[in-house]
């Protein structure tokens, strides 16, 4: 990634956030919400690569890293999708429109999107792992001509936890785009796929990935797979991809180690000789193979 930004001097303190106003909050599923944060004057422009994250601060409560789901330049605002899991996210969920939230970033390397140009993109996400990938999907639709096909494979625990429902409907209608959803266990009122998301990359499964299994072999070679989800999930996906000898440098994953500072100083996200917040969170499968299994 080209980082042409000048190295900041000591007096530019990277730990200090700026505060943006929450302009809109939309319920997504019963544990997740969307938050639109308006950027204050002087911070309107964000150089951002899909996959990067921001540190959000609730004064008096704490700071957490959250992947950026989208940056809307017209509205000068950032979109964060946040699940209610801990103390800070719980507090953010209680916030109302008009309140202020601290933001610093973007941090991390992001997806090497330049490398994806002219290729098919297969997105595999489990649970709230689709949030960071939304920025990739938005990027894809904005620069449609640069890319080939897009496929979204998504697994949720149950139908109530499915996120981006409406968007997925609209994505499906678009040209060259497919979406497949699966839920973990069969449930009343659900007539779609059931089972874990790794089924969708299994060649024996009835409704498996279009690009990987139902297209010409040349298509498969010209494909990158982006995986975001909990470690248990991406490990099973990698196993499936290994079975079909999918090249390891075309698979990208996002690690979600515990982070505190976001800039590679606090040491929490240290994994081998990498700091996930600075050298990651996006790693290719090839890199991951050389790293210590501490994620």
């Amino acid at each position, binding site marked *: 990634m080209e980082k042409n930004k000048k190295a900041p001097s000591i007096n530019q*303190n*990277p*730990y200090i956030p700026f505060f943006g106003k929450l302009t809109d909050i939309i319920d997504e599923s019963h544990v997740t919400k969307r938050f639109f944060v308006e950027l204050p004057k002087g911070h309107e422009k964000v150089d951002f690569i899909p996959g990067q994250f921001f540190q959000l*601060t609730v*004064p008096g409560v704490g700071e957490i890293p959250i992947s950026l789901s989208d940056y809307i330049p017209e509205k000068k605002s950032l979109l964060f999708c946040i699940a209610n899991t801990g103390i800070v*996210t719980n507090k953010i969920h209680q916030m109302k429109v*008009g309140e202020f939230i601290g933001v610093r970033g973007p941090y991390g390397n992001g997806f090497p999107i330049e490398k994806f140009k002219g290729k098919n993109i297969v997105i595999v996400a489990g649970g709230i792992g689709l949030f960071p990938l939304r920025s990739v999907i938005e990027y894809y639709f904005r620069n449609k001509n640069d890319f080939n096909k897009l496929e979204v494979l998504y697994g949720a625990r149950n139908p109530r936890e499915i996120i981006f429902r409406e968007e997925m409907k609209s994505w499906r209608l678009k040209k060259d785009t497919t979406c497949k959803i699966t839920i973990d266990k069969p449930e009343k009122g659900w007539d779609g796929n059931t089972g874990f998301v790794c089924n969708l990359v299994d060649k024996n499964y009835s409704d498996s990935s279009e690009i990987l299994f139902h297209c010409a072999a040349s298509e498969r070679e010209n494909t990158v797979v982006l995986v975001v989800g909990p470690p248990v999930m991406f490990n099973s996906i990698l196993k499936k991809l290994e079975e079909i000898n999918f090249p390891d440098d075309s698979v990208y994953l996002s690690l979600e180690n515990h982070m505190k500072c976001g800039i590679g100083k606090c040491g929490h996200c240290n994994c081998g*000789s990498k700091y996930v917040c600075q050298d990651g969170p996006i790693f290719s499968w090839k890199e991951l193979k050389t790293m*210590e299994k501490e994620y």
Partner: protein
Amino acid sequence: MRKRLQKQKLSSLIKKLKEDATVIAPVMTDKNEVDFLPVNSEEVILSGARSLYSPKKYIFKQSESMYDYTIQDSGKVTVKESCENEKQIIMGIRPCDLHAIEYMKEFYSGKYKDSYILRRLENSVLIGLACTEPSTNCFCTSLGNSPVDTDGSDIMMADAGSFYFVKGITEKGKKLIENNKDIFEDSQEDDERVLSDIKESCEKAILEKIDVTALKNKVGSAYNSDIWKKYSDICVNCGACTFNCPTCTCFDVADTSRSKNEGCHYRTWDTCQNFAFTLHASGHNPRSTSEERLRQRVMHKYQYTVDQMDQFSCTGCGRCTQVCPVGISMIAILKDIKEVVDNGEE
């Protein structure tokens, strides 16, 4: 710049330095231990082995406020950066701790700069002291360091019997000597020999020597060996080693509120030996066992920082061994690693 400082002039030097800065030096505490504390003048101890506690706490504080916030009635939040500009002079730092400060300086720079620590380093003058006597746990020579190393210091001092041999290293240090030139005397030509004498006698007294430099870039190959289990069985994962380590840099960040509208964002030391250190919000823990956490500490010191910055982040001060409540010795671990690495190469 070479000078002499007569021993009886030391207190007048400290008195002079105290005029515009806090002077910190090793003193005897009421618990009969040597610790770096702000001093008045006479009680400074510039002899014996390195202190049990490192001067790290004056550069990287145990807990410090990063910024204060105020929530205004309109809901807007204003932030006031905590900014310390106090000048401090730290005296009597042994070469191992100087190396550690040097490492810290490099670690906290880089793409993002930790302004708190770098600012504090800018405001400090570091006066080193050649180490005349090792402790039982010292192994600095094993890491290629020596008891008279000067890197990291602004001024280096060495005990030469009736006087201290003083050497200005950086501009900052030379300026300090220049400002107090009436206290110092000119040095004789062969004063420099003090350093080599000290080096020889001190190195001879170090009990343990194992060539760790030969292990550079090879420690990683012991990652999957079973030596970790041997030590993690005994290790109680307390973190005393990391908090007393002069190069351990990890910290935790948290917020606290003083009242409804006010509070601060602060950081404290944190340790990788703690279970919750890597715990994900989902409950998954990448380093959930004691074995993995112990390995992380050792690997980080001898392999990961070599990958990142091409240097060990261990200076061989041996404090981790000294404070360990169950007597785990870093040298023993290193010896085991060496064995594993050597066997692997054959």
